């Protein structure tokens, strides 16, 4: 019996358990589709801007002005509420039906004309990320609105100063109607400003290729997560062999201890590699994620990731005393490596110190290497560092597994 025979035996055992296919293939595909859809997959997921309500007298010029200024927002969009009742509007924010409600007080523009600085009440939950995002955008738009008010005021003052005197009250030279006209003129000017920023990307791929409908990040992330989850069955085989004393019997054969480990490792390697290749092909051919843009780089990352994940599987199988432990270790490692790697919350949203720590973990290397190919459009040289680090980790884990196995079988 050789290590190769042992590998074949393990693979047959894995394939016989058809239920394991569920989390080797079906779950990663399902979660890639799910997360991809959540992050705006399938090309055009509709209008994802946060819904806000501009309440108050809809015939008032300030209402129309704010609605006009919000039209060009890429963050929020105005919607018509089911009820304009104050309590119902507040409840709609509480219930998450809309993100924010801005109330235009009655006589807002008249107060501005009279020289007051009225505030715009805004009901928003700033303890939520939606609320904070909407608040920030509304604040910017309100600054423009108030700038329009100030421009109208400045016009009023200039007219008052420059117009021929028309009695004791010079302000009458600029009526409220004229003030509103000036305000509306300022709002129209704000709407016609050229875009101040032009965004370009450090990528050799086009925008459509790069985004792949929102799957470019979720695909590598789910591949990492479920390749570790998929180890449950493979690691369980070693545990079962030990429990049923098959391992002890194996050691009475001519197969050496390193040979036994190699056989199990090769089986895990084959399983994970086949899993990753199928997931890469699915993402490339069905979801149009650009893995095949640099096939050698993709293959290299897949091979090194496989070597690392299979080494984890070997160690889990060796150290676990029961199948439950094997499952638990797989799940813990899945959560920790995927979480630290940025599979769920991309690392860009975490603090600087955490990012530094996370970028030193294998999960982050795998996701980063795949992203170099599918988002940055880079080739083999861009993944060499990540691949080297993954191989070093794989060797270290395999050595640990071998040492532990030697002590167990001594």
């Amino acid at each position, binding site marked *: 019996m050789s290590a190769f025979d042992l590998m074949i035996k393990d693979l047959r055992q894995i394939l016989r358990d058809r*239920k394991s296919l*569920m989390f080797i293939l079906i*779950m990663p595909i399902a*979660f890639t589709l*799910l*997360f991809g859809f*959540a*992050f705006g997959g399938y090309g055009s997921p509709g209008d*994802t801007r946060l819904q806000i309500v501009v309440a108050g007298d809809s015939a008032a010029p300030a209402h129309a002005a704010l609605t006009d200024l919000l039209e060009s927002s890429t963050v929020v969009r105005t919607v018509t509420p089911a009820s304009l009742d104050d309590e119902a509007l507040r*409840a709609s924010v509480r219930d998450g039906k809309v993100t924010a409600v*801005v109330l235009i007080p009655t006589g807002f523009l008249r107060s501005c004309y009279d020289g007051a600085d009225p505030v715009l009440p805004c*009901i928003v*939950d*700033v*303890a939520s990320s*939606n609320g904070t*995002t909407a*608040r920030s955008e*509304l*604040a*910017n738009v309100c*600054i*423009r*609105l*108030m*700038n*329009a008010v*100030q*421009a109208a005021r*400045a*016009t009023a003052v*200039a007219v008052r100063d*420059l117009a021929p005197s028309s009695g004791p009250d010079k302000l009458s030279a600029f009526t409220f109607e*004229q003030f509103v*006209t*000036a305000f509306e003129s300022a709002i129209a000017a704000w709407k016609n*400003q*050229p875009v*101040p*920023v032009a*965004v*370009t990307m*450090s990528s050799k*791929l086009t925008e459509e290729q790069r985004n792949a409908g929102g799957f470019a990040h979720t695909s590598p992330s789910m591949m990492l997560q479920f390749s570790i*989850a998929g180890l*449950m069955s493979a690691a*369980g085989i070693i545990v079962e062999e030990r429990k049923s004393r098959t391992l002890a019997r194996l050691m009475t054969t001519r197969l050496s201890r390193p040979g036994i480990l190699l056989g199990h490792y090769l089986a895990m390697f084959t399983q994970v590699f086949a899993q990753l290749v199928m997931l890469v092909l699915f993402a490339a051919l069905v979801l149009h994620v650009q893995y095949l843009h640099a096939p050698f780089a993709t293959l290299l990352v897949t091979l090194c990731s496989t070597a690392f994940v299979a080494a984890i599987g070997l160690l889990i199988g060796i150290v676990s005393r029961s*199948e439950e432990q094997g*499952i638990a270790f797989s*799940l813990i490692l899945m959560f*920790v490596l995927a979480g*630290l790697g940025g599979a*769920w919350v991309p690392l*860009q949203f975490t*603090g*600087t*110190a*955490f990012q530094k720590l996370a970028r030193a973990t294998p999960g982050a290397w795998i996701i980063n290497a795949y992203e170099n190919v599918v*988002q*940055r459009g880079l080739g083999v040289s861009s993944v060499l560092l990540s691949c080297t680090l993954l191989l070093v980790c794989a060797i270290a884990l395999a050595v640990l597994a071998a040492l532990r196995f030697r002590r167990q079988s001594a």
Partner: protein
Amino acid sequence: MKALDIALKDLRHSFTSLFGLMFMFAIPLLMVGLFTVAFGGTSTSKPQAFSIPVTKVVLANLDAGDQTHDLDPTDTDPSTTAGDILAHLFTSDELTSLVAVTTVASADEARTAVDKRMAEVAVIIPPAFTKACVEGAAGGAVEVYQDPTLTLGPGIVRAIISQSVDEFTSVRVMQATLTKGLTTAGIAPSPEKVAQAVQRFINETIKTQNTSGSLEVEAPPMKQQKSASILATILAVSMAGMMVFYVFYTGTAGAESILLEQEQGTLQRLFTTRTAPTTVMQGKMLAILLTTIIQMIVLMLASALAFGIRWGGILPIAIALVSTGLCASAFGIFLMSFLKTTRQAGVVFGGVVTATGMLALVSVFTMSVPSAARLGQQIALFVPQGWSLLAFRQVMDGAPVGRLLTSAAVLLAWTAVMFLIGRTRMARRFA
């Protein structure tokens, strides 16, 4: 009484297993600890303790200026360009917590720094920037060259540029409005008078400007008592998510003892006594229920102490806790009724419990993207864990009891259906 004995025996088994204890308590707390470190503090920290990473920016100011008047009267140099003002803003002390700026001489150098991953964003101020700011001329857009995998940092950079450009725009808008207003009033303004009006406008704008404009933020009803920050929300929702995920795991692991006892033969021996299968099931259900409730209480207390999470009032907590405990127990019995051996249970743990748990957690994982989080909350309601998470979120948000009771009712409906199916299948098996 026999059911209680069975429950106590199972409880003792659950709480004397070091590995079980780790999975019930240590791992969920560890995961939330990870989130705490990731977002930079505990929820008892000040709201601004939410740690926004510093974005590495490389800036190339190519602005040729060519303005007709001094753009920044506060300095002695009349040749200060709009590009200089923007560059100064980027390097100002106010923004050091958001951006770390390096200045380079050319656009190529700036782009190369991003290509080599030495910077995340390059800001290239074009030669016509001042012209664009002062006269509204085309071709003056600032180029933001960024790493394609990032959105947050480049978004902050774009917001800084937009705000700066808005200040120039407001002056242009004012000039246009003034000229139009005077013309309409039949007044032909002299350039000096317009300049004076503009200066007055600038002075007034600077005096009255603040970061929120004229917005007066009010919290929605039922959230007004909370002094919550985004960080507090992230940690609280993460903790609730992790707790729900691992409670359902405990429910399934607890129910696995039925299979284990069947394999070891102790269940068959129990049936040779006068203990009815229904009593055994009741005992098992009670044990799982108590285990999950103890697990949740410990996790809530520990997270309140360690991370400062405020869980809400006692009565709403009790409603969410009991309905979740019942549902997790029924979930375990339901799943185990489909299995024959503990070996098959591995697939259930890895597949069904993890998959359904992760469906419920989609809204937690996608918190950073508002539209995705909204969709995630809807998807989560397809699994019982999602309703449980919703109940705990309602408790923490101080939602009306009626809404919480609706979530609890749905959880109890899940419980009834799963328990009935599980019990029927188990009864058939042990008949």
